[in-house]
Every structure is written in structure tokens, then in C-alpha cells.
């Protein structure tokens, strides 16, 4: 046994941990790094379960955006005759459906994530941030499926994107942060006030109409445009359109920057609120 002592000693020094009230911030990022594999496994679990449980899982991921696109194209394109910026209306709608559907499902799933994983939160320690993060990551798979459909749709209309398409990851990241920020905040509120779960579907429903999903932002009068961009998804959706539809659209910088600022502030605020509540999670959930 004697030969084990040096090893034990070094391990002990490495993992020294002090538990006391109000503590825990010091090692937070190190902990998240140590638990990165759990993030991977939780996302993997949810993806597996989602596509395993129903054979229509994948079909659903294809049908939902297609049907929504058809309805929006009919209502806004043919009935309301809104301008299509010189691109086929279905493509105009679909480029916005991509980020919007990613945002809305990420938001609804992450805001419920602490409650659905309550059992784990009261039985085991890990950085709780992982739970809503994995809920958002899972939706990237749906996003990818929709993206393939968009590719097919663009091939059908013989519409080629420009170099701008390479900026897409940037806008996707912004969409990720926006849904994660709001989702984290809602998830934390949900732990504390259990009836907050009724608020989220309402936000999602309302958001669809105040975001430029069925129409182009250019239909919003110029003087209202900046105010309109207070909705962080406006910047993300406009960015998507610009990246995919290329030169046909002008990039509206003030709106994008405003979205960026709003998203960052929201993320910071959500994180602070979450950190303050996280310590009490196991006691109140």
C-alpha cells in the first residue's frame, strides 16, 4: 500500500475542495470544463430519445417547417402580397423559419429543462448550466434537418447563395445565445415560480408575429426599424436572410448591433439570476 501514498497525496492536492455558504463561484468554470462530457451525454441522450421514441420523429422535423412555410407563403405572399425582395417567397419564408424554429423549440425546451430533470438535480452534483444548454443543443439536430430541406428548396428554385453564406455560423451562434439566454432565465424562473411555464408558450406564440418570419423586415417603416430590432430575433433572422439570399438584401447594421447588445445583456442578466438561484435549486425544486 505504501507505494500508493504519493499518488493519493497528489490527487488530494489537485482536488482540494472547500464547501461553505456563499461559495462555489471560484471553481465554476473549471467544473463546467470537467463536466463537458456530461453535456455531451445529456444532449446525446435527448437526441437519441427524441428520434427513437417516434418513427415520425424525423418526419416531424421535416413536416413542421414545410407546412408552416406553405401557410406563410400563402398568407403573406399570395393573399397579402407582401414584397419578396426579388427571391421566391417560399425561400424568403424558409430562411427565417430556420432560426425561428430553432429559437422557439430551444426556448420552450430549455425553460422546462430544470423541472423535467428535477430528479437529477436533487440527487447528484454537476454544474446545472449543463441542463438548459443541452436542451438547446438538441435542437441543433432539427435545425440541421431543416437546413437540408432549405438546400433542396433552393436547388428546386435554382437559387445559388453568394459568399455571404459562410457567415451563417455567426448568426446561428447569435441565435443560439439568444435562445440560451432567454431559456436559462425562464428555466430559473420556472424553478422558483412554477406557473411560469404558462408564460413561455405565450412568448413563443407572440414572438412569431413580432419577428420577421412570414415577411421581410423591409415592410417595417424605416423610423420603426430600430425599435423593431429590440427583438433580438430580428437581428438573427435578418442575418440569416442576408447570409443565404446574398446581395439581394441590404444588411441593416444598426438593427444587428442592437440585437447583439440586447442578446448579450439578456445573457448576462440571465446568468447572474441563475447563479444566484442555483444554490437553492435542490431545496426549492
Amino acid at each position, binding site marked *: *500500500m505504501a507505494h*500508493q501514498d504519493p499518488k*493519493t*497525496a497528489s*490527487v*488530494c*492536492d489537485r*482536488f*482540494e*475542495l*472547500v*464547501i*461553505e*455558504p*456563499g*461559495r*462555489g463561484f471560484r471553481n465554476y468554470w473549471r467544473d463546467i470544463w470537467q*463536466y463537458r*462530457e*456530461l453535456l*455531451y*451525454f*445529456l444532449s*446525446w*441522450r435527448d437526441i*437519441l*430519445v427524441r428520434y*427513437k*421514441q417516434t418513427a415520425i420523429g424525423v418526419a416531424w422535423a421535416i413536416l413542421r417547417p414545410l407546412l408552416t412555410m406553405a401557410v406563410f407563403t400563402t398568407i403573406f405572399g399570395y393573399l397579402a402580397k407582401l414584397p419578396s425582395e426579388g427571391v421566391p417567397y417560399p425561400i424568403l419564408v424558409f430562411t427565417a423559419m430556420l432560426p425561428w424554429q430553432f429559437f422557439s423549440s430551444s426556448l420552450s425546451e430549455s425553460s422546462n429543462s430544470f423541472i423535467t430533470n428535477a*430528479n*437529477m*438535480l*436533487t*440527487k*447528484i*452534483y*454537476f454544474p446545472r448550466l449543463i441542463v438548459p444548454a443541452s436542451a438547446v443543443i438538441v435542437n441543433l439536430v432539427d435545425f440541421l434537418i431543416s437546413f437540408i430541406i432549405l438546400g433542396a428548396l433552393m436547388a428546386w428554385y435554382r437559387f445559388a447563395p453568394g459568399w455571404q453564406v459562410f457567415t451563417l455560423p455567426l448568426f446561428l451562434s447569435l441565435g443560439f445565445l439568444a435562445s440560451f439566454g432567454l431559456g436559462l432565465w425562464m428555466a430559473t*424562473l420556472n*424553478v*422558483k*415560480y*412554477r*406557473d*411560469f411555464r404558462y408564460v413561455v408558450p405565450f412568448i413563443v406564440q407572440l414572438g412569431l408575429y413580432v419577428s420577421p418570419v412570414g415577411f421581410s423586415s423591409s415592410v417595417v417603416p424605416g423610423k420603426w426599424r430600430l425599435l423593431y430590432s429590440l427583438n433580438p430575433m430580428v437581428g438573427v433572422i435578418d442575418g440569416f436572410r442576408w447570409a443565404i439570399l446574398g446581395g439581394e438584401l441590404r444588411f441593416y447594421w444598426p438593427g444587428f448591433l442592437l440585437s447583439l447588445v440586447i442578446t448579450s445583456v439578456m445573457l448576462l442578466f440571465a446568468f447572474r439570476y441563475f447563479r444566484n438561484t442555483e*444554490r*437553492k435549486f*435542490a*431545496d*426549492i*425544486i
Partner: protein
Amino acid sequence: MGKPILSVEKLGKKYLLSHQRSEPYTALRDVMAEKVKEFRRRLVNPFSGARPSDSGSGPEEFWALRNVSFDVSPGDRVGIIGRNGAGKSTLLKILSRITEPTEGKAHLRGRVASLLEVGTGFHPELTGRENISLNGAVLGMTKVEIRKKFDEIVDFAEVEKFLDTPVKHYSSGMYVRLAFAVAAHLEPEILVVDEVLAVGDAAFQRKCLGKMEDVASQEGRTVLFVSHNMAAIQTLCRRAIWLDAGRVEQDGESEAVINAYGERLQNASNIPATLRSLDGNIDIEQIQLLDKNGRATSVYSPGSPIKVEIHYHAKQPVRRPYVWLGIQSQFGALFGANMLLDGARPEVLEGRGCIGCTFHTLPLLPGQMYRIMFGGRKEDGFSALFKATEVTHFLITGSAEEIGLKGELADSLVGQSSPVLLPYTWELPDGRFVSVNPF
């Protein structure tokens, strides 16, 4: 030895108990309604201070743990014992970083893995193979570690054939075996285990205990082990800490601590805190165990009768409820009395009163501790009135010989043997009949 691997200093955890709510979380609409009321009150009477009506119904402080200090040296195995509500689980939760202490601190010099429940994070739709990976990650193993230990885990759990079957099709025994197997192959320096061995069959429990012993003695890990199974604590741990009402009552050599704890149990046989129904309408104020002379005690001899008295206080009339009692040992559920089965049920529970239940004989082996579980359902027979809760325990004392067990090793084995003893007869090849008719 050098530095302790775990030192706990004046640790305390305070909870706020609210008498109005049964759930720990709040509803936003209640908070908003409160604020509106407050605002209206301020409009009417802007100079009043805090509401006087609040003081009566406000939250009450409750220290689940207070001023707890101890050190553990590397490689030690420490058992933690005490009644329900004594603070054992709270202590484990603080040490596993699930909840924060209110005061004091704990210093850990090594990685901690805690096993407060088997199968945390298991998903019924996933296969055994997938759940091993997932559960391993949840418990803090890396992908490489999981891959390295995979065969060992499967071997230990004895589920090779069902590896690719979703665990929802597993029997409960298989499920528990797999879950424990993953946990048993963790390699932390400090292993914190709550009463998880109360599940599974006896053979598997012994296997688990053996594994935990190996983990501690051969691999030099430190184990903190909470259990009601005194025999398990005695075999596994050299040292025991007895918690009572959130404080360390005694800390020392496990046999001495267990004996002292047993003595205390004999003197007090009522539940520590009030047990409240899920809807808040009934409090169980006391559960008493009475012997044949009507004396309150928690020590019985084999074969004697026991009367369980449930003293309730119904704040609102509760119509035709079902309640049940169950007797458990370290091996699991033994027998019980269940109104859902026998159909005996009170018409209404109103105000203060008592439900009694006498078991006319306790066909149980001496040398073991038995737990009494209590639960109840509402009139419809489906919705829960009381969660299944362990309410009290009792000991059976006496020698093996006086109940007709004459084996040479009987006295040392009764504490670990299957506890229900019924009359039986051996027919031996030489024509002898040997009957055991114990009670």
C-alpha cells in the same frame, strides 16, 4: 495518518418551513396577489410598518443540521446512523454539493462521488448499454473510464444478454443491479453512499456490500455510508457517527455507537416530527408501539404481539381513507396490514383520534432491527394521502435457543438471516422428524 481527507467544521443547514404550503416552490400568481394586496394596504394606510398578521403564519426556521464537526482519515469507512429526520441525508447532500450549507464548512481533499439513489439519470427508453454510458457520465466518469470499465460493469450486473434491450423492459432486480454496478465502478477518493442497498434481493445486497468493502480496503478509498442496516454498518465500518436532531450524538467505534443508538431507540418509540398528509388536512402527531401490557416500548421478544397506534389530527374531515402499515427489515418488505386489501376503513377522520393495529404475533428473528412503514390513500383508492414513510423502528431481542434454533452458529447468524420464521419440519433420512415451532 497525515491530513484528514475530509474535515467538517461546525456545519449547519437551515430550512424555512412554511405552514401554509406543502410545496417548496411558489406560484407567481400568489406572489403577485401578495404584492397587489400589499400595495392596496399601503394606499389605504401608508404609514404602517410590517403587517402584524404575518408574524403568526410566517415561515418557521428549522435546523436540519447544526454544529456538526468531524474528521475522516483517508481509507476510513464511516457509517452514519440515526433516525429519519436526524440530518443524515442533509449531511450527504451538503458533502455531495447538491445543496449549500447555511454555516460552517467542509474541506474535501479528493474527488467525491455520491450515490444517493441508484440509477439517477437512467432513461427507460435507452438500452442497457446506452444507460451505462449515460449514468457513468452523470456520476462523473469520463468516456475513457467508462469504456475501460464497461465489461466489468456488465459482468457485475449480470445483464450481458439484455445489453441492447431498453431498460423499461428490465425487471426491477435487473434495473437495480445495472444501476449499482455502474456506481460501484467509480473511482473517486471519497465515496458517499446513502441507503441504496435497501433494494435488490439479499444475494445481490451481499454482493454490493462485498464490493464496497473491496473498494475501501483494497483500493484505499474513503467511504461514508448511511444505513439503517446495523449489521451492514458493523461489517463495513470501523467507525460510526450517530446523528440525532441535526447534531452529532456520538462518534466512535461502530459497535459502541450502534449499541448506544439501540438503547436510545428502546426508550423512545414515537416519530420525531409531525407527519403531514400530502393535502395538508391530517397530521399524524404520534405513532406509538405498545406491547401486550399496553406499555410503550420498541423492544419485543420473538413471537410477541405488537400494537401500532396512529394518533392523528384531522383539521378537515377526511372521508373513508385507506391506510396501511408495512414491516420491513434489511432484506426488504416482510408483511403488513393494508386497508386497500382487507377493506377495513374508517368512515371519517375528524379532529383528534387514533387508529390502532395489532399484529398478534411477530414471527421474527432476534438480533435485527425492523422498520415500520406507513402510508395512505384517499377515498378513491388511487390518489395518495400519505407518502410511504418510515415512521418508527423496533428491535427483536432474545437468544436463538429460546425459539428453538439450536444450531451451533445460530446466535451469530440470526442477525443476518432471512427474518420471518414460520413453523416447519425436517424429515431426515434416518427417520427422525425435527420440528421448529418457535412461537
